[in-house]
């Protein structure tokens, strides 16, 4: 198993070493205006972008991203069309995909890993593929140079976290709360508690995602974590407004986390 540091992790570590907090927005692939939103986010201070490949049964997602996924699917988006379109998107920062495991399983592990690499994607997040089931995919991903970001949840006992980190590439995705993606009024205390537990045992960048709902919550998360992943608050702006609104929001988040 290769333990060389990959493109995404190297990039995030370099940014961090410059005293920079990491902002990673999530954008649903195939949703109207999604490539413009990627460009707007990158131009306004995102450090990497997570692109969602929509799935019919997104069990980790709340209403906003469910809606975005369903709309994209109804519009004819497929994993192939999204990866194809991504080839023409060069924003100078690393791109990761978020997809449910059946998308990977259906395509075949090696074929899917290769298709990511060919599309210029350097990492994958597969939220329904926990550590114990990840072996086949991770072997194929490693072989293709795709970094597999693992999720760590507040429910993990202490002896589980180091095993997750060992298998993790890119960054550690600290799930901020018990629940699915979506905006909340406040940042859950579980987010900071988990980030502290992870920071105590790894040098890998630790980003909090799920329930980081605005610029102020992002800044609060970054008092402990190295950065944040934000999905529902980004997609709500793309659904209700447009790519420009996404850009303005990322600029706002950037400013807030830079001050902390």
């Amino acid at each position, binding site marked *: 198993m290769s333990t060389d540091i990959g493109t995404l992790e190297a990039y995030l570590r370099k940014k961090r070493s410059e005293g920079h907090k990491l902002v990673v927005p999530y954008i649903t692939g195939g949703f109207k205006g999604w490539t413009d939103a990627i460009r707007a986010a990158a131009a306004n201070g995102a450090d990497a972008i997570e692109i969602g490949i929509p*799935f*019919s*049964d*997104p*069990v*980790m997602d*709340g209403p906003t991203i*469910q809606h975005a996924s*369903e709309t994209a*699917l109804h519009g004819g988006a*497929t*994993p*192939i069309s999204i990866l194809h379109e991504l080839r023409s998107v060069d924003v100078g920062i690393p791109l990761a995909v978020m997809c449910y*495991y*059946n*998308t990977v*399983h*259906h*395509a075949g592990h090696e074929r899917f890993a290769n298709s990511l690499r060919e599309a210029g994607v350097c990492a994958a997040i597969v*939220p*329904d*593929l*926990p*550590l*114990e*089931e990840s072996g086949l995919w991770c072997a194929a991903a490693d072989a293709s140079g795709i970094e597999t970001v*693992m*999720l*760590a*949840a*507040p*429910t*993990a*006992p202490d002896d*589980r976290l180091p095993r*997750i980190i060992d298998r993790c590439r890119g960054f550690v995705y600290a*799930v901020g*709360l*018990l*629940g*699915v993606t979506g905006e909340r009024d406040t940042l859950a205390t579980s987010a900071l508690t988990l980030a502290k537990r992870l920071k105590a045992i790894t040098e890998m960048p630790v980003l909090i995602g799920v329930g980081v709902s605005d610029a102020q919550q992002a800044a609060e998360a970054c008092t402990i974590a190295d950065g944040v992943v934000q999905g529902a608050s980004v997609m709500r702006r793309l659904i209700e407004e447009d790519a420009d609104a996404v850009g303005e929001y990322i600029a706002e988040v950037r400013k807030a986390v830079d001050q902390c």
Partner: protein
Amino acid sequence: MLQDPSLDGRFGEFGGRFVPETLVPACQELESAFRDAWADPSFRKELDDLLRDYAGRPSILTECHNLGKQLGIRLLLKREDLNHTGSHKINSVLGQVLLAKRMGKKRIVAETGAGQHGVASATAAALLGLSCKVYMGEIDVQRQALNVFRMKLLGAEVVPAVSGSRTLKDAVNEAMRDWVATVEDTYYAIGSVMGPHPYPWMVRTFQSVIGQEASEQCHSLLDGKDPDVVVAAVGGGSNAIGIFSGFVDTKARLVGVEPAGGAAVGKGMPGVVHGMRSYLMQDEHGQVQEAQSISAGLDYPGVGPEHSYLASIGRAEYPSVNDQEVISAFQVMSRSEGIIPALECAHPMAWIIREAPKMQGQTVLMNLSGRGDKDVAQMMEILDGQI
């Protein structure tokens, strides 16, 4: 006996535990709690007592003389429709809710299709003093209004699932989303032999009482012999696995009948959804397809992983029947035997009627897993003016 799954929850290549990281510790805790409870004589006694004194077990075996004569076969029914709450679902739910209490959980969430598992869950929660929330596809809420009201009467909260196909598949998604958020105090009572390990194995274990009883009852009725064919409906497949478990070591043909619009084994290919790798109806990109069946309880694009395994090794077969055959069988059974079957069970009945010419003189055991009262309003609409 059916074999136990491997340590990683596999039946052959099927099964596993494909859940969000948040739920992994909960599945591990459940597996360990179930192993511990099943090995504990006091838990087994408590469950056996409830099954006997509350659910009404053992369920009887009925020979259908009229239909048997018409079809040229010997037809036996395992009468799970006579259980308390009207279906086999109570067998698993009493076990699961007892286990939830033993684990210190305060709340049950469940998904339901036709409402039978929801009603059974609401019943067990009422009996054992836990709160209960049931997710049900919005379309099923409409076509199974009677069961929705029953659940509410029993004190459960019924939440319509409005995403996706608004049927059983989406009710499972909503129940899993609820569980991800509430896992610390909540037990997810899955209604079939599906979901992440240990559910397919645990639910099968609780449902195997059907097969054990049926085996003994057949031996008594058939002078120590086994039936030639054992038939049951398959959506997720819990009633089928329950009755198959008593006959897997015999020479009996095991037949799981799927609806034509939800034929996971017949038309699907291996995929991963709802925590398990199993046969799954999906499109060319791996999107899960929406099932289309007259029966809300079978309106599911996947199937329990052990059925995928039994199909893959050729031990069981999974033919399908269409809605028209089902509507006809529903009426045939009602008129010939005075038994109104659940629409789910009209599927194996339809298969038996279709295949009877090839089974002349054989003994066919069918699991009548539920009663048809819940389907009467829907059938009134379908048969409007034809009766």
